[in-house]
């Protein structure tokens, strides 16, 4: 294992997709899914990445694990460029939202867990089986599950298996891409507890990608908020949630359904219509599909405070004087 301070580091990472839309011979329109993203995840840190669908958060997770190639900029895993790292999969692993589609339906759980070891020629058959059994205990299933097929498991159990499979090669960082979004709340809690336990057990770092802000606040040390391919705010989870600076972060946090008692002062016990979230022009319903990368702030069209400069110049991700390691991308922050 290398001695780099960071488990995962992005340096000016961009990814351009070409949308094949017009005629057969025309060059498709370029669409920048990830735009100059830079941040670094310390060892043992849980780093959250939040944003709405289409903001580029999953693309970033896939760039880190080399599942998406052809990106610009540099990705360092354990201090080494991911593209030149030979055994990348023993440094970084990914866990997906839907375990049923990422587990081989024709193989038993034991086989699935042993597969990474087989591929990397670690140990012999016996020691691999032992390692798989140990991992099954670690993820709370027990070795009796090695004979079972994925379809025989519940969603939560399957997610335990895919987490176990990701850890077989003892990576230093795991990209968890919406790992609990498909699960019921009671099972979601089990998996979140498991992820915390495993982090302590294996000394893991996580890049935790989610659209669920509550889950991210609970799990993460630091958070980056992403909008239209760019990081718009970054800081400790506590700071970002208690005093969001970027207008988009503020909207996100205000839009969260609260579990606090509702005041029912209005007649009929009905609550006032949410005043904090403006019903914005539906044209911007899906900002990621507009090509926002060329000029101006990506949030311009939806921002209640936007002014002339916002349309013309992309604000820098600027360090904030108050909080430590706090960055906001807004002309008015």
């Amino acid at each position, binding site marked *: 294992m290398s001695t780099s301070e960071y488990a995962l580091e992005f340096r000016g990472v961009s990814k351009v997709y070409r949308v094949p839309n017009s005629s057969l011979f025309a060059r498709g329109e370029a669409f920048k899914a990830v735009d100059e993203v830079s941040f670094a995840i310390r060892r043992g840190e849980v780093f959250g990445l939040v944003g*709405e*669908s289409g903001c580029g958060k999953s693309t970033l997770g896939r760039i880190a694990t080399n599942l998406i190639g052809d990106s610009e900029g540099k990705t360092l895993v354990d201090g080494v460029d991911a593209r030149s790292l030979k055994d990348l999969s023993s440094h970084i692993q990914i866990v997906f939202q839907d375990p049923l589609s990422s587990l081989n339906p024709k193989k038993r759980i034991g086989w699935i867990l042993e597969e990474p070891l087989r591929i990397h020629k670690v140990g012999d058959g016996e020691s691999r089986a032992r390692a798989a059994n140990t991992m099954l205990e670690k993820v709370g299933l027990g070795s009796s599950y090695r004979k079972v097929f994925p379809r025989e498991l*519940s969603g*939560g159990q399957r997610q335990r298996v895919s987490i176990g499979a990701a850890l077989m090669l003892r990576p230093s960082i795991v990209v968890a891409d919406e790992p609990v979004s498909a699960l*019921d*709340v*009671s*099972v*979601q*809690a*089990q998996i*979140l*507890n498991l992820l*915390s336990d495993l982090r302590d057990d294996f000394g893991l770092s996580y890049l935790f990608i989610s*659209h*669920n*802000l*509550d*889950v991210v*606040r*609970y*799990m993460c040390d630091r958070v980056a908020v992403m909008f239209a391919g760019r990081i718009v705010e970054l800081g400790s*989870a*506590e700071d970002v949630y208690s005093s969001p600076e970027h207008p988009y972060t503020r*909207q*996100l946090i*205000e*839009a*969260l*359904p*609260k*579990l606090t*008692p*509702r*005041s*029912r002062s209005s007649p009929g*016990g*009905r*609550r006032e*219509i*949410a005043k904090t*979230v403006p*019903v*914005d*022009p*539906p*044209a911007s*319903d*899906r900002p990621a*599909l507009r090509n926002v990368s060329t000029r101006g702030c990506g949030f311009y069209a939806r921002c209640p405070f936007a002014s002339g400069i916002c349309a013309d110049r992309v604000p820098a991700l600027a360090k904030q004087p108050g909080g430590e390691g706090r960055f906001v991308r807004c002309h008015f922050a």
Partner: protein
Amino acid sequence: MSEELGGDILRIRDLRLSIRRQDSYFHAVEGLSLRVGRGEILGLVGESGCGKSLTALSVPALLPEGVERTGGTIIFDGRDISELGPEELRDIRGSQLGMVFQEPMTSLNPLQRIGTQIEESLELHSGLTRAQRREATFDMIAKVGIPKPGLSSSEAANYYPHQLSGGLRQRVMIAMALVCRPKLIIADEPTTALDVTIQAQIFGLLRSINAEIGCAILFISHDLGVVNELCDRVAVMYAGRIVEEGSANNVFIHPVHEYTKGLMGSLPGRARKGQRLVSISGRVPPPGERGQGCAFAPRCGKVREECFLAVPPKIELGPNHSASCVLADAESEMEYVNI
């Protein structure tokens, strides 16, 4: 339940829905009773597989093949659903009861303009002229906020579903459900596939429609936060039965059933960082694997012997709060504060 509840738009009593497998039946929903008052927003919460969606589909008699209603009554607007013929049912489905589902793309016709689709139910159920129908459709499009800036409702009506984003498609669904001014809307996880900011907008829309035309909403969700945000009253469902019911504040401030407590404790939004989440061990038993006692007993932290013997009866805990748990009585000493 007494007749004084005559003001209810929907009353379900002892509903039993059974899944037929070869020659045996599994009861997906068993002995479920529920009421929705006129103009009320009721939240039906539960995890996947608890039977909440089947319950919703049983109201307009749209159960999927292989699932049958084998017991209970459903009274919609004073009329027993099972006594209605196909004609009357069709009339209720289109005009008096609207439905909104999770994935709008599967419910919209991809080859028809949205205006045509919204207008269709008016054509079938209202006596309006063509011009009046067009006008009502444009009104509805404006009300749910579909037009883009600089575009009139009549232009927006010419869109096809694939030209719209998920949030806008869901607005089209809501417009379709509302255009005949129904007395009840059944919304089954309508915002689950949407981003939080869009979700907040859809809630604002549902609330304003609820206030404006006074239609009741049966809102089905797995998300307690969402239900607390939107609903007046909440019913918590587990393994085919209602286990706790009451005003949103009562249920969320004083959850009584161990399952409701477990659900609340497992929400990361309520936990402090580093604090372990309360997780309910095990999983929801599928139909056919539920014992004769309380279905939650095998997962319950306070289980007693008697829990396995019979299904606990519903116990009234106070004004607008009830739970089906043998321990409910002991905990009913709580103080109800009006918040």
